[in-house]
């Protein structure tokens, strides 16, 4: 911080991530509106609180261990490098850098002067950017399981997905030195697999153990459509998710570093793998993939608003893995094809396996993210995955294996095991009587009782004043 240009670079980077955090907050406003709009009136408050409390729980646990996982586990479980856990003294929850710090010499012996100078002004905002990704991962599961999951059980699952499994996959495949990048050439620049596929896989696992809502399927097994009670709330919710997605894209970049190897310097934005990209590139591709999704899903769903909006989101998710490098028309086509496949898959899985995914989260995020990673493997075949010499190039098989790891190994399996345990001890699903009459009985009880008391008191006051007999 002793030269003006150096200080400007640091403070610009600090401010850059801070802005992304504020923008990404809209994702969670959107998720809350979307879920409440999708639920029936008898379940509003429960649905709202279930999603809201993901925020503080994942925040606390991501502080306690999530951030450390990202920096400590890129080597994977003995699969890359020497398989060891890396030192990350700036990310341990007891580090002095996990708090207000001006970057002077360290007090703790674990840290060096370089650590404090590098991380003091970046650690909090970089942590928060990743934290907002973590909330998203937890919230994706939330939508699928509305109207019958017990909140306490869901929150344990959300902590596991938001502060453990997704950040393990980020360490493996979304870290410049992750073993999946090094050995598989895994490329997933804007997190098709790293966030969406893993959360979709987890949602599918929980849905299998949770079962469908009462009344979802007829006696002959055909599904009933439980429509969103408030399409306007759903609409605004999804628009806010789109808005937050801008922040998400920008947060996946590093705004300004020297990318020139060898002689000379060249300052550029990079993706998370430290390969150069530009904000213009991702802006083209974000908008074209969104457009592809909206246009295609409008047709395939015969103009259904719920699916058209979800399809727009799925279009972005489907193209995100390669949206740092695609041509905008490629992003448009991928953004159109992926949600059409996901739309068809959603209804096929619903009919075939009696899976009641209330908001289509498994399709939009899970299948969309999986396909996005696989398609990027073909589209970017032969591209370098990293600026580091010796790393594998991007290939279809590398990205396919990566997609399986995201959706299946780290998404589906841990969530299946945890939700099966919660089911076995009888705390995964709410009592059936409560599901029938609505979850808001408890939430409303205190408020309406108080309202009635207050109303009685007002009437007594009016009588005492002689204004009412």
């Amino acid at each position, binding site marked *: *911080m*002793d030269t003006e240009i150096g200080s400007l670079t640091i403070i610009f980077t600090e401010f850059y991530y801070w802005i992304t955090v504020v923008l990404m907050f809209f994702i969670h406003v959107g998720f809350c509106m979307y879920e409440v709009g999708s639920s029936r009136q008898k379940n509003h408050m429960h649905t709202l609180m279930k999603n809201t409390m993901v925020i503080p*729980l994942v925040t*606390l*646990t991501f*502080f*306690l261990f999530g951030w450390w996982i990202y920096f400590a586990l890129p080597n994977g479980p003995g699969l890359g490098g020497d398989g060891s856990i890396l030192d990350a003294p700036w990310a341990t*929850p*007891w*580090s*002095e850098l*996990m*708090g*207000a*710090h*001006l*970057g*002077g*010499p*360290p*007090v703790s012996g674990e840290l060096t002067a370089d650590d*404090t100078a590098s991380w*003091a002004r970046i650690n909090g905002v970089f942590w928060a950017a990743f934290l907002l990704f973590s909330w998203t991962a937890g919230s994706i599961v939330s939508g699928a399981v509305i109207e019958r999951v*017990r*909140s*306490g059980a869901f*929150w*344990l699952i959300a902590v596991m997905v938001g502060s453990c499994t997704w950040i393990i996959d980020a360490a493996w495949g979304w870290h410049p030195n992750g073993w999946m990048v090094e050995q598989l050439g895994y490329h997933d620049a804007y997190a098709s697999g790293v966030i969406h596929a893993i959360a979709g896989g987890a949602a599918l696992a929980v849905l299998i153990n949770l079962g469908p809502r009462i009344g979802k399927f007829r006696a002959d097994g055909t599904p009933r459509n439980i429509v969103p009670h408030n399409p306007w709330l759903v609409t605004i919710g999804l628009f806010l998710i789109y808005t937050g997605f801008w922040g998400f894209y920008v947060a996946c970049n590093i705004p300004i570093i020297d990318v020139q190897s060898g002689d000379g310097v060249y300052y550029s934005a990079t993706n998370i793998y430290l390969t150069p990209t530009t904000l213009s590139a991702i802006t083209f591709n974000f908008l074209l993939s969104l457009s592809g999704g909206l246009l295609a899903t409008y047709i395939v769903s015969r103009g259904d608003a719920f699916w058209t909006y979800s399809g727009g989101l799925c279009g972005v998710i489907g193209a995100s893995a390669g949206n740092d490098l695609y041509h905008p028309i490629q992003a448009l086509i991928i953004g159109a094809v992926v949600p059409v496949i996901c739309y068809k898959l959603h209804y096929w899985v619903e009919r075939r396996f009696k899976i009641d995914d209330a908001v289509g989260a498994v399709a939009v995020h899970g299948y969309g993210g999986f396909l996005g990673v696989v398609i990027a493997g073909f589209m970017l075949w032969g591209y370098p995955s990293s600026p580091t010499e010796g790393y594998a190039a991007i290939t279809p098989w590398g990205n396919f294996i990566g997609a399986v790891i995201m959706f299946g190994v780290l998404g589906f399996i841990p969530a299946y095991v945890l939700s099966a345990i919660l089911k076995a001890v009888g*705390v995964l699903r*709410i*009592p059936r*009587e*409560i599901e*029938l*009459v*609505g979850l808001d*009985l*408890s939430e*409303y*009880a*205190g408020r*309406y*009782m108080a309202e009635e008391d207050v109303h009685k008191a007002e009437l007594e006051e009016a009588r005492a004043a002689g204004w009412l007999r």
Partner: protein
Amino acid sequence: MTLEEVGSWGGNIADIGPLYPMVGSEGILVLLGFVFWIGWHILQFRMESVNYQDDVQTMKENGNFARALNGERILRPM
């Protein structure tokens, strides 16, 4: 060097590291964070179980279940 040790903003700012009070107590603070987190889940599970028991009990009384299914708002006492 911590701000507590410096004691003023008048010295060399570049020498200042942590700004928060009680530097050195981070381990205990993290332990408190874990207790807060785990304790919250335990309290929440208990609260939720009691809520559902009370709700189910309310539904069993005075024909409340049928009335609730017919759209009437049934409130359980707090």
